[in-house]
């Protein structure tokens, strides 16, 4: 027997009314503190400062910074990072030179020095801290995936 239209409507309304009760309690990264209150920030984590290069998770990943950059000025007037990583200073500093991709403008035109769009280092490159990730990360790099496929045998 087909249920009458009113019954269907009533069932839908009841379901809607019950939705908030069904909802999983969600917590944002800022914790359960209401928006109107200031949460107490956690203590500042220790900074990685061991100067050991980390492997990139994928080829195009901007390499992370293995040292502290506290107080480094990167402004229109000055760029502290380039004092070591700039091409002409790498012999003395023994720091890796900024990638040659940084010498090209958006049209692929090669420039004499770092391109404005690559000038503000910390837009992509970040210093690291010793901290537990706030969310789980199940990223696998391409080699891991290929190895697994190869292990599974040919199709």
């Amino acid at each position, binding site marked *: 027997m087909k249920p009458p239209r009113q019954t269907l409507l009533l069932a839908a309304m009841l379901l809607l009314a019950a939705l908030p009760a069904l909802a999983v309690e969600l917590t944002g990264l800022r914790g359960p503190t209401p928006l109107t209150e200031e949460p107490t920030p956690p203590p500042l984590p220790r900074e990685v*400062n*061991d*100067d050991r290069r980390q492997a990139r998770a994928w080829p195009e990943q901007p390499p992370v910074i293995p*040292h*502290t950059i*506290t*107080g480094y*000025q990167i*402004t*229109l*007037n*000055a*760029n*502290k990072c*380039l*004092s070591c990583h*700039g091409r*002409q*200073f790498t012999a003395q500093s023994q720091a890796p030179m900024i990638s040659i991709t940084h010498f090209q*403008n958006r049209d692929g035109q090669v*420039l*004499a*020095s*770092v*391109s*404005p769009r690559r*000038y503000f280092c910390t837009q992509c490159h970040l210093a690291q801290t010793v901290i537990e990730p706030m969310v789980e990360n199940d990223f696998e790099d391409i080699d891991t995936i290929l190895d697994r496929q190869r292990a599974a045998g040919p199709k």
Partner: protein
Amino acid sequence: MRRALDLLLYVWAILTRPAAYLSLGFLTVGGFLAGIAFWGAFNTALELTNTETFCTGCHEMHDNVFQELKATIHYSNRSGVRASCPDCHVPHEWTDKIARKMQASKEVWGKIFGTISTPDKFAAMRRKLAEHEWHRLKSNDSLECRNCHSFVSMDFTRQSARAAEMHGSLLASGEKTCIDCHKGIAHKLPDMRGVPGWDVSWEIR
């Protein structure tokens, strides 16, 4: 003119004539005490101009360089040791201090005529003013840094590998001094074009 000359001769006569009523004891002891009072007052006044409160009494210092300092490690840090303006900008030895204070009379001139009275004027002067300080610290082998940061007491094993490498070679050999690398540690940097170690001809301009 005539009267002024007479007055001058009169004073000269008093100064050259032996004292008739005052005893030698009074004059020597009194002179000694007056000397102490003068010296004390002079140095007290000098020290008064050597405080952060005095330096930041002008809006030029308070609104620009002092605000920049506040975010740096020389103002706010883990253990609460801090440097105030004169710790870095005024020599601690008396002779050098007096020389610097005499130079600083130019800063009074600048204050009166508003040389850096607006942010724009200050921005335009910043490179020149910074160069004065770099030059001073380069000439005295970064003396004001070394008043606190003793090379002898530096424990390289507690420095990062990079820092230990640089301090152990360039600083130890005397090839470079603190200010050569540590520019802009307490204040915003000026336009660094042409400064050694910062010579990056950016397309950004």
